[in-house]
């Protein structure tokens, strides 16, 4: 099967910031991403879990974008402007995709 190089960017960020991150990504021309729920975790600010919450203030979400390598930097710049003061974890890894024309 013919595959093409791409980058997978995963951003874990506070749920109340989801809307802003989505908007920023869309403004930066990143049209493809998916959002996965995160139900718990641990970090410098202690550990948490979705069941122990009222309201969404404490929750996190993971935003996953698959992008062409050449669009990585623009994506990271715009994402960073949102997560900068926040606790978001940003990872980038290599991957291959089918149907490169979609990215």
């Amino acid at each position: 099967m013919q595959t093409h190089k791409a980058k997978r960017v995963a951003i874990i960020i506070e749920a109340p910031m989801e809307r802003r991150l989505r908007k920023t990504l869309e403004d930066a021309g990143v049209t493809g991403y998916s959002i996965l729920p995160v139900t718990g975790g641990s970090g410098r600010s202690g550990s948490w879990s979705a069941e122990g919450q009222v309201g969404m203030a404490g929750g996190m979400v993971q935003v996953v974008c698959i992008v062409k390598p050449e669009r990585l930097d623009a994506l990271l710049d715009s994402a960073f402007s949102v997560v900068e003061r926040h606790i978001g974890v940003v990872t980038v890894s290599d991957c291959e995709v089918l149907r490169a024309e979609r990215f």
Partner: protein
Amino acid sequence: MFGIKYMEAVLDDFLSLATTNLISPLILSFVLGVCAALGRSDLVFPEAAAKALSIYLLFAIGMKGGVSVADHGVDLRLGGAIIAGIILSAALPLIAFKLLGIMTALDRTNAAAVAAHYGSISIVTFVAGTSVLESAGIASDGFMVAVAAAMEAPAILSALWLISRGDSETRMDATLWREIMLNGSIVLLVGAFAIGMIVGKEGMADVESFFVSPFKGALCLFLLDMGLVAGRGLRRSRNVLTLGLLGFGFLMPLIGSAAGAALGLLIGLPAGSLFLLMVLSASASYIAVPAAMRVAVPEADPGIYLTLSLGVTFPFNLTLGLPIYLALATLLTGG
């Protein structure tokens, strides 16, 4: 002589009120939740069910308020009560901020973030308050629901102003402002209030066996979950709770309720509504304000403000606060 007898009678009243309150299924459910969480039981309430229950409670309480206003006509005091609520919500953070400066070592940002919570309100405390009123057979004004909605947001502005006077900057923008004003619970409360006003008693009759009769039982389950959340929060964050913070968490609701009482008397609220205004002033937000703080003041530590409002002040109000405020409200209005 007479004064002492009177005080004794009041104290008696208060004690019996407190006992009734403490052994109601509502409070016991909350206590069960706290104990289960502290004992590290794996009992959890699914997040979706908790959200659904809170939508139900907000809708029901809003609608009941609206129906009651439709029934009794709009009262002149409505305007006064809403203004009083806004003033309280805006002013209490300033008091809280000062108090935190005296009692704790929190930095400016964290102190302001905590202060915001105490100006705003906890609608569940309000709902529990209406239940206590009902059991005591005391009437209250339907429009107090609108006052509750009006008190959610001003506190956030005050806190952001406090922060911006220091050197840290906040992320306040039109988007956040809209998010705060149109947050789910305000929309539900105000919307259901409006629906109640439109459909009146007659329309309510249709949906009474869903929104009215099962209300208290549903509140039991919700308080069970609140107990679980509060208990788990306490267990996780016991190390952030200094003595000063703890003291603040108990003292501030008393100060808030006193301020609420003062303004409520000024505008001539009767016992039931006065009590509810005191409850609103005494209670601290743990839904709307934390979400706003996460966005606007990411540097503030949620462990501090959530633990204080949900783990300390909420249980205090629910158990001891409510009977105290009710005894005072009856006393002050000569009831």
